[in-house]
């Protein structure tokens, strides 16, 4: 299998993007945590002020997996962020290729396309997070020149969830 096409996602891709998001969540054993709907994805990605950008990988009709029948077989979701020290950055939020289509270089091509997007948009860096238990992914990225800032500089990721956000905003 060799032919695949990487392109910017369109509104019609939203059902496939949500399907792939849920597949990736299932792989991470957290499928019940996906509360996003097709309506959210459409509004948030294709409205006047998109919260995210997406590229999808699709295969020609004759190469669709006979088991699944899907032509959109991978995606990457990203957005632009800001570092007050160096300016614009590209943040890679999610990156996934269906199991049946791995090992053909699709993941590598997606990563290269995104890094090209980062450079063309004057971004100094591409950032993302990976669970430390996911050794295969960490090795994949490190082989391509990524640095682990949690190990190197001691950065720890924190979160304040909605319940505590509401408490804090009421305290003001």
């Amino acid at each position, binding site marked *: 299998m060799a032919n695949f096409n990487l392109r910017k996602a369109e509104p019609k891709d939203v059902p496939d993007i949500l399907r792939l998001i849920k597949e*990736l969540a299932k792989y991470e054993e957290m499928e019940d*945590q*996906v*509360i*996003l709907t097709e309506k959210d994805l459409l509004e*948030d990605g294709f409205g006047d002020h998109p*919260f995210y950008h997406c590229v999808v990988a699709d295969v020609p009709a004759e190469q669709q997996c006979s088991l699944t029948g899907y032509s959109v077989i991978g995606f990457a*979701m990203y957005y*632009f*962020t*800001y*570092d*007050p*020290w*160096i*300016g614009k950055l590209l*943040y890679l*939020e*999610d990156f996934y290729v269906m199991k049946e289509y791995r090992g053909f270089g699709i993941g590598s*091509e997606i*990563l*290269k*396309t995104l*890094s090209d997007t*980062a450079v063309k948009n004057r*971004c*100094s*860096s*591409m*950032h*993302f*997070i*990976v*669970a*430390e*238990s996911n050794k295969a992914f960490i090795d994949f990225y490190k082989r*391509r*020149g*990524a*640095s*682990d*800032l*949690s*190990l190197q500089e*001691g*950065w*720890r*990721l*924190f*979160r*304040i*969830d*909605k319940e*505590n*956000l*509401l408490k*804090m*905003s009421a*305290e*003001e």
Partner: protein
Amino acid sequence: MRFTICAAKPEDCKDIARMIMELAVYEKMPDQVKISHKELERDGFGPNPFYQCLVAEVPEEHKSKDGHTKVGYALFFYTYSTWKGRTVYMEDLYVMPEYRGKGMGKALIATVAKVAKEQHCVRLQFSVLDWNKPSLDFYLSKGAEDLTAKEGWHFLRFHGIALDNLAQEAP
């Protein structure tokens, strides 16, 4: 001490750049600051801003020994979770040392939380250096969870030459 928290204006960028450098010095990485107030103005106040910023200001009678009335800031932007949707990432939160302990840090983060709520965001994320105990304690007291400890998340980066090399291989 009275203070106000307001959305930053373009003319605040010189003060914001000054405080960014003060925070970088505290984080022991001042040589990593490569942008000035000019980039901050261009990137924060054009038709497509890349960040939002709040500034804490005190009245003239409480100005700092160097004559500054803008004494704290919070810089944040919108991000997206494929599981939950709209989120806010707080990139920087800083109050000048002589103005700490007066509720400004708490007011800045509470205002970020308020903006997040108005934009229907489901969570606020940020990162903290592992040795920064005062900040770690402050955030934990507000209900923050350390996801690096709890779930093993690590920050990775493709930067500089590594990014250029990867891009050159793009189809």
